[in-house]
């Protein structure tokens, strides 16, 4: 197992190199001269020339790439907008995103799994229909609309929770619910279908034939098996939360990395965009590794060595 984790961590290196090459080339693939692009429309020829030297754009492409890589680590990759190392701009944002994503996945897993299990155990009952409908609704609702509705109810009318910004736990509640809703729906649907599949298996009948109480048959024998496909969905959802929470972050003015990337693109702050892509990709790969490790823990048939 340790060998597997080490091997997977080594695999992180080629993935990050790939992503960094793409992120780096992005600037060069855009039509026109990158220096002109960076300088903007009204720049004079001298300004452009100065920029070209400042960013080493006059050097060969691979030298530029290594400068970019070096800059990622030693802080010489400077954000154009904030005029500080790109990494120090991104790091606190990633922490904020992580905080929101963790809270959201907790909400999603708790709500989604309970709904899925209940649906599967009492399938074709009223509870099942209500929960499947809500799950579909949760998956389909646009985040900006759902966020605004919640703000209207809980911030504007009831005045229970803040409508945006960061602070204590209270600030986390609404964004976590909004970001977790779609995932809760996806998790509920996956849990329901995998649970129903497992409940049909012979070992469930065999467990009942031993005289085990229903509760143990469901939560010990069935759930442990049904969790395997569910964990995949949870991992994917968590990955999306880390990378693509732009809408939620915007609605709740949450200073996360998704908004940072969008703002940086709009502000043509290429170093920050490039560095964020590399970091987000790295986090995504780590989450996937976590999921794979969890598989082995849940299912003894999966051993990686």
């Amino acid at each position, binding site marked *: 197992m340790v060998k597997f984790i080490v091997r997977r961590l080594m695999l992180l290196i080629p993935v990050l190199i790939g992503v960094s090459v793409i992120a780096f080339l992005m600037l060069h693939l855009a039509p026109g001269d990158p220096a002109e692009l960076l300088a903007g429309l009204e720049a004079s020829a001298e300004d452009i020339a100065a920029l070209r030297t400042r960013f080493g754009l006059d050097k060969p492409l691979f030298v530029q790439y290594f400068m970019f890589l070096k800059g990622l680590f030693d802080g010489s990759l400077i954000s154009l907008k904030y005029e500080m190392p790109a990494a120090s701009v991104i790091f606190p944002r990633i922490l904020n995103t992580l905080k929101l994503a963790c809270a959201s996945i907790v909400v999603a897993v708790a709500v989604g799994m309970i709904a899925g299990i209940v649906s599967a155990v009492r399938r074709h009952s009223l509870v099942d229909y209500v929960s499947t409908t809500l799950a579909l609704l949760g998956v389909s609702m646009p985040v900006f609309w759902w966020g605004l509705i919640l703000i209207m109810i809980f911030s504007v009318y009831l005045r229970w929770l803040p409508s945006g910004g960061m602070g204590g736990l209270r600030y986390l509640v609404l964004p976590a619910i909004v970001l977790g809703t779609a995932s809760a729906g996806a998790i509920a649907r996956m849990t329901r279908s995998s649970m129903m599949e497992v409940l049909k298996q*012979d070992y469930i009948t065999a467990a009942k034939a031993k005289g*085990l109480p229903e509760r143990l048959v469901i939560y010990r024998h069935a759930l442990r098996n049904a969790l395997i496909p569910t964990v995949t969905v949870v991992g994917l959802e968590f990955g999306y939360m880390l990378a693509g929470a732009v809408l939620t972050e915007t609605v709740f003015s949450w200073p996360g990395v998704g908004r940072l990337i969008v703002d940086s693109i709009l502000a043509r702050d290429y170093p920050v965009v490039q560095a964020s892509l590399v970091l987000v990709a790295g986090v995504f790969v780590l989450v996937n590794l976590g999921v794979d490790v969890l598989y082995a823990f849940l299912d003894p048939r999966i051993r990686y060595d």
Partner: protein
Amino acid sequence: MGSLLEVKDLATYFYTDEGIIKALDGVSFSIDEGEILGLVGETGCGKSVTATSIMGLIPSPPGRIVRGSILFNGRELLSLSERQMRSIRGREIAMIFQDPASSLNPVFRVGFQVAEAIWAHLKTPIREALLKAAELFGRVNIPDPLVAISRYPHQLSGGMKQRVMIAMALSLNPKLLIADEPTTALDVSIQAQILSLIKRLQRDYGSSVLLISHDLGVISTMAHRVAVMYSGLIVEEGRAEDLFQKPLHPYTQGLLAAIPRVDEDKSELAVIEGTIPDLTNPPAGCRFHPRCPWVMKICEAERPPLKAVEPKHKVACHAYAG
């Protein structure tokens, strides 16, 4: 010795969108203490449904026991609550399943799965129950019991898995063991081992066994008494030697004739003409009449009752009415 299990007029229906499947439609038989009763019949004739009905594990919906009685040790199982039934399952009536590969939970160690059965009934601490499991593993001839208890199902062969299932079934010394096609999924060489193991344990423990199989060879080596099932009904029942030497029902005769023999020089296999009836819409009267070589007028109209035509040998056929 009295009857341990008495099933009378048991009917189990499945209410599906395609109609009502009358999987069992008036099954009656009994098992004495210490006896092995063989239940034979083709696939889909209701053997397994009989087993799950006795265990109270008919999936509901769509299944339901619509009438009849299952007397076990003097108690009516059909009137017990789920809680009372649970205390009987595994403890007084245990079951061995057809496919040991799918009846063990893949994510738990086999020792734990046996220990869990003991714990469920006796509340034995799991550590002690595991030791008991190891002891049972020894009794069913699993090598290195103390190592084997910490194996996962996928690390064991099919034969070993079935031994685990047998150990689990015997863990609480049940009065009745239901073995539903216990060797069908196993290699032929392993089958004999498992069968002789079941027979030996049955003698040692003095349990009764309901042995379900479509394999007449298995039934003839194991059973004291045999019941032949056709389309949700028992058509013939008697002592193994009587039934195999002098089968009465045309269906039983057909089954026995269909066994290929090495000492006979025949180019074609004997078959029973026709197919097993559709259980949503079974033929009226005797359910075997569309395939029966002896069919008479009365067979299409009236269902023949199961009655003794010779001592300890019952048959449900109008041909023996006189």
